């Protein structure tokens, strides 16, 4: 069930109204059943995988808290992590490894092939696995008490708004909210609905409109000129942003209407003036996850400089691989790692040379533009079906030969309309990051206008969110 479907529209009304009609003690059950229904709308059988990890992590959490022996605690933590990562490896990465090992064996003329698994990737597997892992790690670290209520713990992993594409929550932020009673609060409803409306707008009006152009160009890169590829790549940057942040907005808004606060996942990333800043604004729940559970345990920046760079590179490489079992994602992660390292070296050299940075508007715009170009360049690898195609596209764009026809799957007016929408979005994010809904009349007018625009200009093709595949 996708957020931009009518099925979700009905489902959301039923669950939210039911939530407020039920006494507090039964709400967890309603949310858990609703989350099961939501997940089973994709591939029902995969709920068993989720149930398996929930059971293992629930007991791991309890034992981690009970046992005083540090060695035993570590063993339980490792068991939990290995189980979670193991499931991820089997379902997400096994065929990738098998294909690469078979290719290597072929080139070395070794007979025998690894078998392939005929399985579909459970939707949102990487998200709920990471969320489950953050729970056991936090219990191990003593930052979170083990959850004794099995249903509430299951709900922590399965809470439907963020089950399949995040934000990847921390137990400290969410678990206690499931215990608290949330009374009906009209302010929460207004603010949640407004965020949902903006999210829907980003998805159906901007992202799905851009996807018509981008999909057509990336399907036949050789038949498209360098300028077509460059335009499609720039637009893809906004497509993936509107798609993913639109989803996050809808997830956060949905939870908000039930009085539950989820963490912010995006803060206008394309207004960043450096790649480093970009990663503090893009997919915040994942970048902070990697920071807390991988980068810092590796030593972070409190190590010699070469090791620091290595830590950064490892984190981005794994972050890329987290997205999907394809060399394109690894290359995307590696590119970001390289960008970040080069940026740090540049800053070090400037500091050494005694250059002091005085911010001004023009410089900021220039820096934001450079950052956008770098990030967009990396998206080529993210969007391409394989590394070979990604190199072809990036090579063609970098060749600088922008002559040739610019025919797109959308007409020129629609292209202009799309660009206007993007500009409007950037202005809105710069000046009105949060739209106040305190004034009910303003809320009703704004909400109605956004929904009307969604209806009139939305592309309703039930296209899934890009991040669902991860």
């Amino acid at each position: 069930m996708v957020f931009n479907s009518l099925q979700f529209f009905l489902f959301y009304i039923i669950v939210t109204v039911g939530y407020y009609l039920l006494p507090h003690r039964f709400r967890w059950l309603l949310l858990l059943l609703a989350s099961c229904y939501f997940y089973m709308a994709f591939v029902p059988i995969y709920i068993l995988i989720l149930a398996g990890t929930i059971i293992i992590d629930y007991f791991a959490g309890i034992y981690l808290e009970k046992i005083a022996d540090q060695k035993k605690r570590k063993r339980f933590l490792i068991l939990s992590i290995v189980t979670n990562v193991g499931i991820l490896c089997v379902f997400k990465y096994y065929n990738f490894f098998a294909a690469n090992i078979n290719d290597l064996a072929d080139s070395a003329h070794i007979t025998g092939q690894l078998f392939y698994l005929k399985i579909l990737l459970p939707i949102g597997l990487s998200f709920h696995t990471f969320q489950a892992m953050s729970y056991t790690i936090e219990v191990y670290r003593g930052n979170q008490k083990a959850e004794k209520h099995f249903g509430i713990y299951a709900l922590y992993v399965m809470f439907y708004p963020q089950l399949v594409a995040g934000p990847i929550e921390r137990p400290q932020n969410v678990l206690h909210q499931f215990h608290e009673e949330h009374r009906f609060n009209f302010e929460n409803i207004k603010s949640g609905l407004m965020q949902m409306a903006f999210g829907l707008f980003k998805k159906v009006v901007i992202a799905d409109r851009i996807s018509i152009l981008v999909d057509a160009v990336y399907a036949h890169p050789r038949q498209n000129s360098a300028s077509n590829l460059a335009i499609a790549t720039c637009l893809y940057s906004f497509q993936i942003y509107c798609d993913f942040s639109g989803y996050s907005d809808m997830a956060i808004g949905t939870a908000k209407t039930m009085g539950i606060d989820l963490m912010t996942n995006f803060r206008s990333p394309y207004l960043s003036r450096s790649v480093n800043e970009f990663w503090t604004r893009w997919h915040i729940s994942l970048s902070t996850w990697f920071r807390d559970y991988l980068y810092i345990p590796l030593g972070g920046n409190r190590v010699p400089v070469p090791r620091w760079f290595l830590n950064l590179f490892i984190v981005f490489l794994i972050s890329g691989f987290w997205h999907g079992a394809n060399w394109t994602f690894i290359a995307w992660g590696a590119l970001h790692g390289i960008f970040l390292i080069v940026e740090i070296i540049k800053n070090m050299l400037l500091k050494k040379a005694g250059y002091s940075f005085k911010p001004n508007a023009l410089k900021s715009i220039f820096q934001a533009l450079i950052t956008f170009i770098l990030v967009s360049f990396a998206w080529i690898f993210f969007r391409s079906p394989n590394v070979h195609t990604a190199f072809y596209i990036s090579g063609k764009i970098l060749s600088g030969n922008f002559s040739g026809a610019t025919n797109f799957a959308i007409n020129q007016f629609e292209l202009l309309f799309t660009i206007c929408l993007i500009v409007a979005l950037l202005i809105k994010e710069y000046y009105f990051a949060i739209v106040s809904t305190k004034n009910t009349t303003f809320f009703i007018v704004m909400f109605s206008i956004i929904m009307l625009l969604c209806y009139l200009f939305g592309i309703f093709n039930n296209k899934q969110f890009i991040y669902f595949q991860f």
Partner: protein
Amino acid sequence: MKKILAFALLIVTLLILVISSVNDLTRLFAQAKYKSKAWWGSDKYIYGDLYGFCYLPKFRINSPQGVDNRVKFDTTATETKKIDLYALSDSYTWEIFTDPSLFYHVNKITFTRLNDRQVTPITLDKTKKNILILESSERNIRLVYEDTAYLTRFFDFKPSLTVQNTAIKPTNNFRFNFKLNDVDANIEFNLWDYRLLTPFKEFKAQLSYSLFNRINPDAYVSDDKRYLLYGITVDTIYKQSSFKPIGKPELNGIIEALNKTYDYYKSKGFDEVYMAIIPNPVTILYPHYNNYTYNQLIPLVQNDKRLKVKVIDAGESFKQARTQIYCYSDTHWNYNGEKIWLSLVNNILKKY
């Protein structure tokens, strides 16, 4: 008061979700909506199925057939009824095959739909000529005509049974495209498909078309803007497309399957087996649509020297027709097209 309203909202929403999740319930509701002329009725198929896909106001045509009255054939009642006609057919001819009086010499008709799951028990009357017609529109050829097992599963030959005419009488040619296999589609139908809302749908459709030159991908507007064309018969990613090239192996597969089907039915006692391919509207009206090249599927199949099945070739007659033969806003032909095709069939039946 707030609680009562909340309960009411919950119950109504639950009801819609339940109805939409159970296909039979939605089907019941759909039948009532199609029949109704009130505000809560549906406009989905009244003006043609392609109009129902895209809601472009220009194609809201009161008589999607393009001509007002069905053409009646004067197949004299005094004739000898010496033919038992059998047919495997699709939506183009379902209605025709319910009426034996449209065909020369025909005593009775037994037909089954190509997408039917049920098997029709039959007994061939050896005192009659038993003729089988395999009718399919061009868009279905590559889906059904390459599988002998599929083509031979429709009739169960039971010599001992007393057979009734099992033909199912459709009430409206435009109502049989409704597919209930998707909860979201059902919700859309139950929540959104009301005559009252048609002006909003038309406004959105016209806005998208005027500004962005885009309509629902299930339909295309012809270059001269006179016809709506069925998306799958145009878009080359689909096998149903008149422009998706056909390779030699696939063609061989179709011919082989048809020949095996022919042998099978002949061995079961049929006197003759005919094949009739109804061309896609785009094949006849716009063979060079969007600078595509027609894949020549019909001539390639019909003119193949290996083919044993006899051919009822409507293509040439359709090309030469001086009247409108396809509906402007529907995937099917109109009564003129139907008439031409019936004449071709009757010319064959007259010879028996």
